[in-house]
């Protein structure tokens, strides 16, 4: 099950104002608290954070909302997190803060094309890019596609799974689906 959270709505509720710009740390904290509250009442497997109503996302809010949410979720219930509705300047802010923390997240861009934002090893990034957008893959299929030994591919996929960027199940690895 997927829980869609509209960040613009969270911002308006948190600030009691019609703001569309996610700026300042206190605002980021307030929005993150609302997201965490919504997620605590949900048994969803995947949280889809929709930024399409947001105009500006500064580094402070990228850190307080996306990075801290990933850190919190990793230490609590393990749940997949996907971002949607981001513009290029917002990608960059999130990319920077996640690299700083050595975290990563999947963002759906340009018609739900998955994009990895943040820090993963070069092997993990290559393995992610090689995965089909729908349907599961096995390490042997993907290793063959990249001409890698299977253990190397398995290590890369396990690293992606550990960061909750793909979903492992019975020896198969699934992309995070949001449709």
């Amino acid at each position: 099950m997927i829980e869609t959270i509209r960040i613009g709505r969270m911002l308006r509720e948190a600030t009691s104002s019609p703001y569309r710009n996610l700026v300042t740390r206190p605002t980021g904290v307030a929005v993150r608290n609302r997201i965490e509250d919504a997620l605590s009442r949900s048994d969803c497997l995947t949280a889809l954070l929709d930024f399409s109503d947001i105009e500006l996302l500064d580094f402070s809010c990228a850190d307080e909302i996306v990075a801290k949410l990933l850190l919190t979720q990793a230490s609590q219930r393990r749940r997949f997190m996907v971002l949607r509705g981001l513009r290029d300047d917002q990608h960059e802010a999130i990319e920077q803060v996640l690299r700083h923390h050595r975290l990563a997240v999947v963002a759906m861009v340009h018609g739900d094309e998955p994009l990895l934002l943040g820090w993963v090893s070069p092997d993990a990034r290559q393995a992610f890019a090689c995965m089909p957008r729908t349907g599961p893959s096995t390490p042997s299929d993907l290793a063959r596609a990249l001409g890698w030994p299977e253990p190397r591919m398995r290590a890369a996929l396990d690293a992606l799974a550990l960061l909750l960027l793909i979903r492992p199940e019975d020896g198969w690895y699934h992309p995070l689906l949001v449709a």
Partner: protein
Amino acid sequence: MTRVIEVPTHFDDRSFEQFAAGFGNWPPDERVLVDARGAQWASPYGLIGMLTAGQAIAEAKGERPLLTVPTADEVKRYWARIGFFRHAAELFELHGRVPKASASGPSDVLLDVTPVRAMEDVHQVVEKITETASKILHRELGLERNATMRFSMALSESCQNIVEHAGTGGWVAVQVYTFRRRLGRRVAVIAVSDGGVGFRRSLESTHAKRFGERWGDGAALEAALLQGVSRFRDPGRGQGFAGIKGFLDRWKGKISIRSGTARLSIVPAWDDDVPLADHLAFFPGAQVQITIPAQAAEAR
């Protein structure tokens, strides 16, 4: 006795040093008269620098300083239009006729002189600039939408520094003008200033030990701007300047931060500033200037 501090004829981040040196000891032990009669031009940095001086004197319980307004009508009108006199009247005893602020006609002022005291003010500043700046930055500087959003991000992060680190309020102003002396091109300039504790004192308890005898205003600026350190233990802190540097690198912009007795700049090829100026006259708080030049046609 009154100490007369002459406002430079052309008052920008460079000539600011002449203004700062005029104060002598800080806080000044005499009443101060800021003499702006001869001013012919002032950048946003110069204007909010004067307000910072007035604010710092008030917070040090000094005698209310005097300010004589520029003689030139055009200069006075511009200072009124950008909102300088409105705030100066609260901090200085003004002498000379102050024109009413006129809002008529197209303006190159992207953001009037605006006080920043709380995070709510940062929201207001960003809301205002994202509404008004995008078209002007595109038309005047050739910046695309993505770049104008990054410009607003830089503004947001700079203003947040005041609220989080200064321990007092500050000021911000944003303007587009032609940078004749050094560049010969249009530029957008964000100027942010506060009269607070400054970078050295803000970072001292957490970072001074690491620097040993090197610790001072210059080392504190290096730590904040070049190494991204923060006084907060939260590992996510200190990324604002890193983000601003990335934006400036891409758009050939410049950032200059003055705090206490030092000024650190990231200097693009078009400028001849020194990276670090040390042993300057003391001036309270921190003053930041971010300059984004019009993009050359081939870079657009």
